[in-house]
């Protein structure tokens, strides 16, 4: 980690926690305000995009229905949970290593592809 980056990581942690908590709170308070936009890719090709179902999953999470959220959009639901934990860790002073493990990059691509395949097979 380079000098002066510590406050940025703390800021990312605090902003991440606030964003996730704030989004869920707004969706819980005003569920009707979350306009579920039609996915342009699905409209054009009938194939869902990798983030299709995100709004519905977040609405389910805001209602406390984590299982439905996981079924609707596994990647985003897991990402929200892990993102909140990682944000709390960063805000508390935790740090990621400067150089990530070489396996993480292909793993990230694989996870996104696997989630997309699930959405396509599930007929979203």
């Amino acid at each position, binding site marked *: *980690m*380079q*000098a*002066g*980056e510590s*406050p*940025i*990581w703390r*800021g*990312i942690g*605090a*902003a*991440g926690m*606030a*964003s996730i908590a*704030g989004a869920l709170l*707004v969706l819980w308070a*005003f569920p*009707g*305000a979350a306009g579920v936009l039609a*996915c*342009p*890719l699905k409209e*054009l*090709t009938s*194939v*869902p*995009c*990798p*983030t299709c179902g995100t709004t519905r999953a977040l609405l389910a999470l805001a209602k406390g229905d984590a299982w439905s959220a996981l079924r609707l959009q596994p990647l985003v639901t897991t990402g929200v949970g892990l993102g909140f934990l990682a944000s709390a860790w960063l805000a508390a002073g935790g740090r990621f290593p*400067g150089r*990530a493990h070489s396996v993480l*990059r292909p793993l*990230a*691509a694989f996870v*996104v592809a696997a989630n997309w395949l699930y959405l396509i097979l599930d007929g979203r």
Partner: protein
Amino acid sequence: MNCPNCGQPVPEGLAESRCPACGRPLSEPLPGGGAPVAEPVFERVTGPGGGGRSGTPWDRRSDMGFITALWRTLRDSMVRPADFFRSMAVGGPQCSPVSYALILGTIGFGAGLFWQGLIALGMGMAGGEVNRQEMGIYLLLVPFAPLLVLMGLYVGTAILHFFLWIVGGARNGIGATFRVVCWANGIQILNAIPFCGGLIGAVWVLVAEVIGIREAHETTTGRALAAVLLPLAVCCGFVAIIGILAAILIPAYVSAAKGGL
């Protein structure tokens, strides 16, 4: 070397043949072109993380004056982004880029909310249906605009840096990405232009971020472009659209080429 028109020192290795301070050609001094100014606009940043890069005009706002520094920083980041981001410090205190992004970002965000609310109200007055909940949320968000802009800077940095890391372009740490996001965010002031300002501003910010990431991380344009566009691609699935277009256009091109042989 100093500019023959304004007298400002010109950073070494400048790609363009124009003065970064006054914008006039370095090779063609204008007749009576301005008295040399004693105060340098660009100055080597010697603080932590300066790394021999020049600062931005906003870094020198105490010398240049608030409005002049704000205007020059906005102008340079929009019109000469390559030189601007090349001269930007990639480390050091956050207060300068954050304050700049907060001022212009909050004005832009607030103006955007104002226009959205006005359009919603106008549609209601024209006989359409007024979404009271939507208008209520706009009103609710206005006082939180600075906080939302600040959150956007950090969350945007995390997303952009993650994708930059994915494409192997993150060479100068998250501090460089954060500064690019902050300086580019000032362009959000274009939201103040009614109707089309938001769209123009969004595209301009993306272009500035691509150039900024390239210069700040000393990476290739392709990697910078991929890092900025991948989050959009994941959301909108336009990778698939490009794939579909390629699947249509490439066979058409191949058959046309065969027909030409």
